[in-house]
């Protein structure tokens, strides 16, 4: 059976906590699952918690950007929370500034941000 990253629904928000090392297939699976869940639940916001993520490559970085863009098309705001300094530096060095993605330091601030920005 293939590994899956759980998606937890909290009221009208979806919380994704990435606790394992990401590999390409897993990232694409997450992208699939998440877009489906947004449509099913009519979620207004998505929190992606990546504080346990220690290694990223350009592909994972791009998938995170893509997920955010896809969620936006489905009318949900995405906030990436808890990024490690090393991960942030890597992404910047790779030239992936994730321009359209909202970020926050931790889950509670991310939630506050979503509550503020979503109507």
């Amino acid at each position, binding site marked *: 059976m293939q590994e899956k990253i759980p998606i937890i629904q909290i009221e009208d928000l979806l919380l994704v906590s990435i606790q394992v090392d990401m590999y390409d297939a897993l990232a694409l699976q997450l992208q699939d699952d998440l877009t489906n869940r947004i449509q099913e639940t009519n979620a207004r916001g998505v929190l992606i918690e990546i504080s346990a993520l220690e290694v990223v490559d350009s592909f994972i970085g791009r998938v995170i950007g893509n997920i955010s863009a896809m969620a936006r098309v489905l009318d949900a705001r995405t906030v990436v929370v808890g990024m490690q300094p090393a991960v942030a530096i890597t992404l910047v060095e790779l030239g992936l500034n994730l321009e359209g993605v909202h970020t*926050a*330091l931790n889950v509670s601030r991310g939630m506050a941000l979503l509550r503020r920005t979503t109507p």
Partner: protein
Amino acid sequence: MPKAVLPDLLQKYRQEILDDWLRQQLAAATMRADLISQDQLRAQSTEFLQRLEAAAKSGDTADIQSSHWAPVLELLGDLSRARGRMGFSPSETAGFVFSLKSPIVSRLRLEIGGDAAALFESVTSVSDLLDKLGLYTTEVHQRAREEVINRQQLEMLELSTPVVKLWDGIVALPLIGTLDSARTNVVMESLLQQIVDTGSDIAIIDITGVPTVDTLVAQHLLKTVSAARLMGADCIISGIRPQIAQTMVHLGIDLTTVATKATMAEALRTAMTRAGYRVVRD
């Protein structure tokens, strides 16, 4: 056999060579009477001659890297490092070894002066040996200096990148000195770590102390800002002097994606407002 001559010679004329050598050293232009006392010099010289004699007895004089010479090299290394710290120059340190040449050579002449070929061979081998030992002191001296320089560089890196917490949720990074790639990395890492540790979502980068901003420095700054944003913290760049503002515009550096303020005070005011504080005067 020149190899056998040196140990015997050192043993036979132990006292004479030492006295001669000390006289040489004291008379030499490189003698630093202000840095080292006569007693110290005598102790060091005696010790060196003892170890030299032991090493010459047991090993060949061609290869000073062999284990027989380890005690001699150790003594020279300590001596060179100590003298380097005391302020001796490399040539003054090497002079310690080189000045031993003439006492030994003059004793060689006394001993085997009649046989020109043997004398020549002995002098060459002694001279070679002492040259190597002298150069070794210079090498150690140099290495000790380099260690000091490296350590100071590291210390400077740390000294120059303090991250200060200004208020709950607001940190500031006053940058002083030129920003190069190595420093940018240190700055970036310490700022990002501090953002995590203090849970701050606003960071003020103050560049009042940065003398010049060129495209490279600007790029480094923007990288830092982007990385902080990825973690969920907003950056404000403050302390941009008029000349720097002019250069930046002339160079076509685009800072429109970053909040910039002229002074740190202004940046703090903005940060407080964003964090929801109101400053009221009684």
